[in-house]
């Protein structure tokens, strides 16, 4: 007969933990095929930390559900009035102090356990000071687009965030400061972390260390007005080399091309420059996205349309056709003017 000593039990428990952890990871791997924004497919430490906690909570609440549900089901079946009932009232029971005590103490213990698990994850995720090698990004929420500034790297861009991948052995996390230019927004890319709000006059911070390259999706998660639904998020996690070359390219001033000088002239003499910046030119508006490297982006209008010449032209002609309620006005350009401006913008790589 094998002895059931404490060491055997510990081995049993740790085997169980490994099993659950393995199942969890396997689950996470399949989970991302169901949806690119699946909270159960974490790819960054904060997200993984939350994922672990969520499994624990789901297990505990699942167990509670099974127990209480079974009791309810049993009582409804077992104590139903039968057809051959004698018409007498059943024993009138008014209460029981022991039972009340039992189902008060046990839930309190469960609550304590859940709280302790939760507090640990709060401590892990709510770090306030970034490590020395962290990339610093400032994200500013606008109605209805995202502004990104890399203060140490001298880059300003919009809507598509690029981050270096982080090696778990030598982490290179990104710390994002979250500000707002107008009303409340919320940054939510589920696979990279929980959401944090962008609130005017209330700077917030979050961090992430994505561990796999790829494109991660999300969107604004705090109602901010008419086009809240199309304030989409795209995060491009790249290898160190790719990220560095992206940074280098973004730091260049805008390409100048004589062939599109008509369009550039039009751009710079119409109201465009009141809202948009094209670095190296007179355009330095801050109300709308920086367009210096517009063509380096896959989408326009914060993900509302893919970045094709047709969409770009349509957007300039009538933003409401793509994003009704967007704050960019229709510029009332003629067809020929539209062609010229679009051609100009197409050169802003």
């Amino acid at each position, binding site marked *: 007969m094998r002895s059931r000593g404490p060491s055997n039990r510990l081995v049993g428990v740790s085997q169980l933990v490994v099993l659950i952890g393995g199942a969890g990871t396997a689950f996470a791997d399949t989970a991302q095929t169901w*949806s690119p924004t699946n909270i159960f497919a974490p790819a960054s430490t904060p997200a993984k930390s939350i994922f672990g906690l969520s499994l624990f909570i789901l297990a505990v609440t699942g167990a509670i559900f099974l127990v209480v549900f079974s009791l309810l089901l049993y009582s409804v079946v077992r104590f139903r009035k039968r057809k051959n009932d004698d018409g007498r009232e059943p024993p009138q029971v008014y*209460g029981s102090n022991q039972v009340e005590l039992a189902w008060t103490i046990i839930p309190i213990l469960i609550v304590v356990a859940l709280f302790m698990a939760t507090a640990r994850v709060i401590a892990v995720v709510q770090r306030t000071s970034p490590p020395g090698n962290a990339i610093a990004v400032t994200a500013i929420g606008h109605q209805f687009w995202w502004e990104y500034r890399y203060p140490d790297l001298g880059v300003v861009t919009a809507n598509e965030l690029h981050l270096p991948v982080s090696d778990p052995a030598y982490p290179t996390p990104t710390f994002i400061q979250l500000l707002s230019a107008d009303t409340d927004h919320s940054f939510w890319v589920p696979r990279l972390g929980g*959401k944090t709000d962008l609130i005017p006059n209330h700077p917030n911070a979050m961090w992430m260390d994505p561990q796999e390259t790829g494109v991660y999706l999300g969107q604004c998660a705090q109602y901010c007005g008419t086009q809240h639904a199309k304030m989409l998020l795209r995060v491009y996690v790249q290898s160190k080399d790719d990220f560095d070359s992206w940074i280098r390219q973004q730091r260049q001033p805008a390409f100048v091309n004589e062939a599109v000088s008509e369009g550039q002239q039009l751009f710079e003499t119409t109201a465009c420059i009141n809202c948009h910046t094209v670095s190296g030119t007179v355009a330095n508006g801050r109300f709308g996205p920086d367009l210096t490297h517009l063509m380096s982006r896959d989408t326009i209008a914060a993900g509302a349309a893919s970045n094709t010449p047709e969409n770009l032209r349509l957007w300039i002609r009538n933003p409401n056709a793509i994003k*009704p309620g967007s704050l960019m006005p229709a510029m009332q350009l003629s067809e020929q003017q539209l062609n010229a401006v679009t051609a100009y913008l197409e050169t802003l790589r």
Partner: protein
Amino acid sequence: MSTDALALPRTELASRPVVSRLHDWVTTVDHKRLGILYIIYALVFLLIAGVEAMIIRIQLIRPHNDFVSPQVFNRLFTMHGTTMIFFVVMPVLFGFANYLIPLMIGARDMAFPRLNAFSFWMTAFGGLLLYFSLLGANGLYGAGNAPDVGWFAYAPLTSQTFSVGHSTDFWILALLISGFGSIGTAVNIIATALCMRCPGMTLAKMPLFVWLNLIMAGLVILAVSPLTAAQIMLLVDRYLGGHFFDTQAGGSAVIWMHFFWVFGHPEVYVLVLPAFAFASEIIPVFSRKPIFGYSVMVGATVAIGFISMSVWAHHMFTVGMSSAANNFFVISTMAIAVPTGIKIFNWLATMWGGKIEFKTPMLFCIAFLFQFLIAGLTGIMQGAAPFDWHLGSSYFVVAHFHYVIVGGILFCLFGAFYYWFPKMSGKMYSETLGKLHFWIFIIGFHLTFDFMHIPGLLGMPRRIYTYEPGRGWDTWNFIVTIGVFFQAAGILVFLGNLIWSYFRGKAAGSDPWDAWTLEWSTNSPPPAYNFAAIPIVKSRRPLWDLKHPADPDWKYE
């Protein structure tokens, strides 16, 4: 059997002109009539808000749908939420409270009948004012617009900068005015329960229904007032150049959230405690046993009332509070699960060892128990702040609170309608139609709200008029929308049953359920004066004592 407030002979009743009868209803201070006015008012707005929900769901049935514009969609979810909470659920619960409390405590009316009427008409006017915005406001997009800032109206979206025109003002004023009505009703309920009980009915012998509504009234007093204050501040910002929530002047958007949720969280307990009250009366009668653990039920409810004032910022976990604050609200949120769970266990223990009759009221209350269990557990999930950093502001939250409000509160309300309809109308409803309503509705409820959790887990945020394909949300949204049609059908069966039975139902008698509280000792419907003689009671179940003189409750309590 009298069917009218005045004990006039039948022939004279039939010949009174419609105008005169309408005048009676408009000027009534009788708690029973005001109760019915509240209930009918709520049912009308239930239909309106229900249609709003249907349009929302049709828009979301597939990605990139264009059934309605984003502007209209944003108004729809604002109006749906605001209407349902303030002009459907609160009025219908106040209606039942007004109708039943005096009857259950052996009184002739509420403590302040004229205040009662005033409160009803304030609430009614508030609802009309909210919908008048469709005609009277001019938003940015043309004349006549409903508010589109969400039912919680976060700053600074509600400032003059971002909410041009008057639609937001209609939201503010409608809620301010109906808020005064709510406070009036709460004052009345407290005064009635504390001061008008019949001889022998100590607080320890008061029906749980009255206890729960009393605690609810206390919460209204403490919770609606902060909303009133916050809305006055918002009006000061919008019209007097104030800076309460003006972030450009150093004001805080977060402080609006604190003020709103200090109201908003206790508000959901205002909504759920009367639902618990219904369950606490119905489940014992259809299990043929007294409620298990009466004193513990009262104590747990008092605990819920207190703790509910301390959990509000669990609606703000993503706002960037310190980890200390987050931890505090995690603890308080999880703590409130303990007394709530105790109540579920006590209802379970009430059924245990009983002889359960599956009449329509009991069907709805049994479903409530299962569904409220699930709703409570998804609440615990969100109470764990890091988990809420995903779940918050997503469709998981929408699924959770609809599970509570529809699966919990509305189901208990349906139970209450069927249970007390015979008392209020004197007629029995059709049990067949009642069961049909139950099964159609519960299928729709689960289709919609079970599956609604999934898009939340897959990253779908709230309050979006459309969504991208390729995120894995499409199928679930489709199923969710289908369920809505079942629920609509169920509601139509319900209303049809009520109306048909009112005119053609069999006479119900004063006590069709063989129940035990004082309202069942009166006629159905009760005369204007309720009781010929004020009763004297000795136990919690006065009618049990009457029906079982050899074995009365007061020997065992």
